[in-house]
């Protein structure tokens, strides 16, 4: 039982960390495709 609970918590913690990474890496298109001449 203990192993199962630790497993679930570990999964959730890793998932939250991954969510943070994804949101940082994947920008809104207005930033991703902005070139030098764009004033946002």
């Amino acid at each position, binding site marked *: 039982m*203990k*192993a*199962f609970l*630790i*497993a*679930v918590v*570990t*999964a959730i913690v*890793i*998932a*939250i*960390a*991954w*969510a943070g990474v*994804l949101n940082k*890496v*994947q920008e809104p*298109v207005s930033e991703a*495709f*902005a*070139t030098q001449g764009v004033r946002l």
Partner: protein
Amino acid sequence: MEWSWVMASVGKLLRLTLGAWAVVLLVALALPAQAQQPSSVNPTASSVKEQQLLQELNRIQGRVTIPDQRSSVLEQPAGRDWRNFRDVTLRWIGGIAILGMLAALIIFYLTRGMVKIEGGRSGRSIVRFNGFERTVHWMTATCFIVLALSGLNITFGRPLLIPLIGLEAFSEWSQWAKYAHNYLSFPFSIGVIVIFLMWIGGNIPNKLDVDWIRRGGGLVGGDHPPAYRFNAGQKFMYWVVVLGGGAVAASGYLLMFPFYASGIEGMQIASVVHSVVAVLFVAAMIAHIYIGTIGMEGAFEAMGSGTVDVNWAKEHHSLWLEQQKAREAEGNARSAAAAPAE
């Protein structure tokens, strides 16, 4: 000055001018309104045609001033084939695989029943999987369940659930399912990698596995072919998880970072690989869950508590049991020798 000469010159000039204008007029009238007729110029002759481009490259792409280069693809008819795969082909593959597996297991259970410990429980137990192994297994397993359900929702949710709960509720559920699918994909991949590394030693196929299969593997007939820690059936499951898990993970990350590594055709291929492997993976895991729970007496505790009954081990993993006993005996002898005599 002779006026008659001047008159003659003016007259000549006048006649010349009139004559010239007459010629011009005649010429103008002779060319019948050419500007209104289709000209002999045909710009289309030297240009590309839509059907020609589609046949040559199966897509039409040009130049755009937009930084997002995906917009330079004007037409990609491959989308039509992908649509057909996603709406028709995949549902058939998934339906047959999963429902087929369920049907096979139901029939198997009704005919063969639960595989019992023939000698009955001995009451003595032996450690089969340690805490770390079980934790990794359960982390991977719980992630798999959520990933499987959220994934199947994308393919089967619309025809099956919308009639039951309506568009808004289904959209809300799907939104959360999608987040869960994206975020739990990472712990799942980590689990698959750890499983690959920690159990690779015991899962290399060998001749004993061929023998095990030939003798029915304890499933067909009442034989108990010997096996080490992992029998052929479990080795098969291991490789399904490692290779199948690897494939869904790789294609999944491509889908999660769309267009980072490929154009639209690459995304469509990734989607096909991801979905086909996933539905087959689900079918295989249903069988794994079956045999680990109701399919076999004494199996669940291996992963539940970590220990198994000695008689269970004797009947299903006799060679592993001998190895463990030998190791225990060796350990006892060593500790007895090491302990200072009192």
